């Protein structure tokens, strides 16, 4: 019998293997490619031809277009996130507080687009923007991209906010009113702080994908909007320079890590247990 029994440690082996193969190893490969160059004329990706170098990074930061792409990426992401929050919060709040039986139907309608293919949604938005004339103007490229991103990521903002707001203890709101707070005061002093974890996870859900998802900026930006994701794609699929591409991916990784540290700072005032995982 003893030979057949598993300890709990053994149950973890498949996951450890998965993590080693699909998380740690790829990361190591990216680091390897990022800090090396190949001497050969045509890239062979043969490890014997690699030599250590900072060249990829120096090249990247040497081009003003690349710096511009970073600014645009993060600018777009921040604007999109803010607009998403501004639209999603009232929606989630009203849905969570409503006693109506059709509340679930409304919630469903708001998050239904999540289940429709992302590329299709973006293409549809392009047609719509074309129809109202936005798409024809080059000056509106950035605006179009923001509209597309907000449209695509709004459901991801509503859902975590709704989940937090629905769990809000009604007694706490009553206690606030009882202690002399008007409706708006209760909202700013109790509801918003208590929905902090929802706001943080909504921001995480929107901010990170929007910095990298070049499908939207490609489709709606009319070729005028280049974000970091696009630069990486170019290196891998057009230039076949895996080294430069890996270097940009690493830069992005570091930038995202810094962003998360900042969001983590904002949420550090929240209750520790309710903040998803306490990772950031």
């Amino acid at each position, binding site marked *: 019998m003893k030979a057949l029994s598993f300890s709990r440690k053994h149950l973890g082996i498949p996951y450890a293997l998965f993590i080693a193969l699909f998380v740690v190893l790829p990361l190591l490969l990216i680091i390897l490619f990022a800090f090396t160059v190949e001497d050969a004329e045509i890239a062979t990706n043969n490890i014997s031809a690699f030599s250590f170098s900072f060249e990829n990074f120096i090249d990247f930061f040497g081009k003003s277009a690349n710096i511009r792409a970073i600014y645009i990426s993060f600018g777009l992401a921040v604007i999109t996130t803010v607009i998403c929050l501004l639209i999603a919060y009232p929606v989630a709040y009203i849905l969570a507080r409503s006693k109506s039986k059709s509340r679930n139907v409304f919630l469903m309608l708001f998050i239904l687009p999540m289940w429709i293919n992302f590329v299709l949604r973006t293409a549809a938005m392009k047609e719509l923007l074309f129809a109202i004339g936005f798409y024809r103007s080059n000056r509106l490229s950035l605006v179009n991209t923001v509209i597309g991103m907000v449209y695509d990521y709004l459901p991801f903002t509503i859902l975590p906010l709704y989940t937090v707001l629905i769990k809000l203890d009604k007694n*706490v709101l*009553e*206690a606030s*009113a*009882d*202690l002399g*707070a*008007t409706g708006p005061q209760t909202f700013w002093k109790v509801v918003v702080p*208590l929905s*902090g974890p929802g706001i943080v996870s909504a921001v995480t859900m929107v901010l990170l994908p929007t910095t990298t998802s070049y499908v939207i900026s490609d489709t709606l930006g009319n070729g005028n909007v280049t974000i970091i994701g696009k630069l990486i794609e170019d290196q891998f699929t057009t230039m076949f320079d895996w080294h430069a591409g890996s270097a940009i991916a690493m830069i992005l990784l570091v930038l995202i890590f810094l962003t998360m540290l900042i969001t983590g700072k904002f949420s550090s005032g929240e209750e520790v247990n309710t903040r998803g995982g306490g990772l950031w």
Partner: protein
Amino acid sequence: MDKEEKIIELIDVEKQFDGTVAVEKMNLYVRKGEFVTLLGPSGCGKSTTLRMIAGFELPTSGKILLNGKDITNVPPYERPINTVFQRYALFPHLNVYDNIAYGLKLKRFRNTYETADGKKVVKKEKLSKAEIDQKVSRVLKLVDLEEFEKRDVTTLSGGQQQRIAIARAIVNEPEILLLDEPLGALDLKMRQDMQLELKQMHDKLGITFIYVTHDQEEALTMSDTIVVMKDGQIQQIGTPKDIYNEPKNAFVADFIGESNIFSGTIVGNRKVRFINKIFDCVDDFPLNEKVDVVVRPEDVYLVDEGKGQITGEIVSSIFKGVHYEMTLLVGKTEIVIQDTQERKVGERCSVIIKPDDIHIMAKEFTVNRYDGYITKKNTVCFADGEFECDVTQLYEGSHLDEEGYLVTAEGEKIDLTDVDVKVEVGLKDVEIIDNDEDGDACGTIISIVYKGDHYQVIIRTDDEEEDFVVDTEYTWNENDRVSVRIPKDKIFLSLKQEAKK
């Protein structure tokens, strides 16, 4: 200020939720500085009443006056009333200090200043940081939690959270403090300590307390006045002593402390018959009136067999710490007795009940109630008679099979023979027959009272066990021998043991 001044007054206040009445035409006032407890079982409307005073619920109709001013539609944040919630409802994102200071930081005072040229300027001002600090630390001292200011409220124990919740409410110096079952989540020892502390706090602060609880002991310990509620209606208002010693009806008696409740009949001048014996009593009720008789377990004196008024056998004896709680079976009636001297199970004893300890309450008589049992033939026996009845009403969706067994909706077969049931028969549903043979039970008319448009006749069965109270259009004579018949569909049965599966 006048001590007798009404601080809050409810006038004809009614609250309905989707058509169901939670609080019915309630009239109540609370004097300044009083400790009033709303007591009742869950769902009796006590919490709803409190929530209307706090302003969380608006009454469907009626008025609420605070110091004589109508506040029915004033929002909670403008009422000088604070609440201690059942589950504390502390703000989890704030520490102890910020929780308590929450109300103080929101407070604005109107201060009038005179400028140099004699103009009066009214300014709204906040409390200063120092004032808030001082108030918070004073109130923390009051609840014995000094130096807890910086603690996270989620790390506190239930008792500590409760104290913080109380501190958060009283720091605002409300005119009325509402407490909604604040001790419900605490263990017994802690609850008892907190009861005394709350009482002391009330004496020290001089704030009016309105307390809601379903715990009669809590209510008796702390209150100046107890309001007993049931089904959205006030049953009795009085001091703890009054409520305990002179309960107005069987419900109050039963809810406040343990009680023996018997149905009785007045059989003479200050004489009441229950458990088949006639006792002297002190309450004066009309002859033949149906009454509830309440006797507290501690007022029943156990004596040796034959030395008391009634004799029976001890069927259970439980040690309760200070006393033994024993049950004496007299015929079919159980009497609960509390005594410091133990009597063994099986011992035969007598009891003495003093006239002073017999509390008699008028019974609201709307239906005849009997204890009965089902026979083999699926008829029901009660009050010296055997009646045809519909036994399928005992189990919803059931039917009888050919052999006379009851088959439940789930297909389970039940043998009802000798099952004890409660029987209810409406006053108008009993038919009186002029001879003592044709009916299902017979007896003698002992009373006939004209009630405006009908006569109320009381028929006592032969061994004087049970009475039938009948509303009838026809006049009868006292001492007539009659029998009664009850239509099959007018006999309402319910199981004595609930949901015996």
